[in-house]
């Protein structure tokens, strides 16, 4: 029932609260003496080049896409993991088959060079 989720709700509240407070703490209690130099874009001490709307390499997209596919694989691991002790060796074999099939895909991806940063 919903009472099971109270720890989860608490954790989320703490996480959100921590994030908001930490991000704003320096703004609230720190002194503010803005100058031209301070207000310029911080780029590790370098003079900023170009705009912030820079195009990101399409490489990221491929990696993100492959990530989602393996993410979905992970989702199926959860119900398997909680029933593993009940079903035993059969479940283990099944999961080997499941992951083995995807491993073929992984080999294909690596061979294809989709994970290389050239």
């Amino acid at each position: 029932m919903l009472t099971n989720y109270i720890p989860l709700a608490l954790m989320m509240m703490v996480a959100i609260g921590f994030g908001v407070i930490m991000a704003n703490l320096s703004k609230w209690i720190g002194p503010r003496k803005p100058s031209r130099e301070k207000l310029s874009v911080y780029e590790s001490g370098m003079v900023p080049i170009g705009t912030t709307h820079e195009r990101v390499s399409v490489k990221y997209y491929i990696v993100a896409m492959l990530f989602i596919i393996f993410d979905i694989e992970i989702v199926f691991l959860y119900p398997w993991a909680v029933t593993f002790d009940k079903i035993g060796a059969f479940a283990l074999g099944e999961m080997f088959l499941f992951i083995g099939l995807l491993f073929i895909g992984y080999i294909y991806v690596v061979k294809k060079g989709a994970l290389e940063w050239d």
Partner: protein
Amino acid sequence: MFDIIFYIFGAITVGGALVTAFARNIVYAAFSLLFTFFGIAGLYIMANADFLAVTQLLVYVGGILILLIFGVMLTSRIGTVDIRVGTGSRWVAGIMALGLFAILCAAFFGTAATHTEKSADGKSQVVTSWATHATRPWSGSKWNQDATTEALKPKYGAPDEVKSNEGSSGTSVEIGTLFLTDYLLPFEVISVLILVSLLGATMIARKEPTKEEEAIAESVSV
């Protein structure tokens, strides 16, 4: 209390969706989609579909939304593009929306919500009640008890066997058991499906460098 949380999640979902639909800046639209996905996960939890909620968070919030934001970042000058389309097809859109609304209403009022009740002799029995009576989610009383999971059971599982979802494990144990017993083949077919999407994504997204480009790349690296 249950109702209040339900409305909060509902408001998050609808509010996020409205911002997504009406935002002029596509980045804001993508980020407000986060709230919609999150609210839907909350609603899944309210319906006792905890596995689905976790999946929603893991796949949609953690994956697809990131992909969407990447898509926004990858597109050049997308910030200056006005993403709102013309109003030429307003009537068609209205009719489509009304039709969808009617279908959803029919599905909602036609779905039986079953819940377990202790009868006088102490045995638990499944009670079926329809949404048109006093069991609407906003009236609160009976709907929250295992409604969704129990409602699906007579269709997909043994109707005489009513398990309660006591304990913290929730529905994932049942889902896992069904995957490894009755629905073994679909489970393995999912693996094949993921494999196919993996290969397809790689095929489409990864452009094979031509001989010329390879030569150029080599000469550059040397």
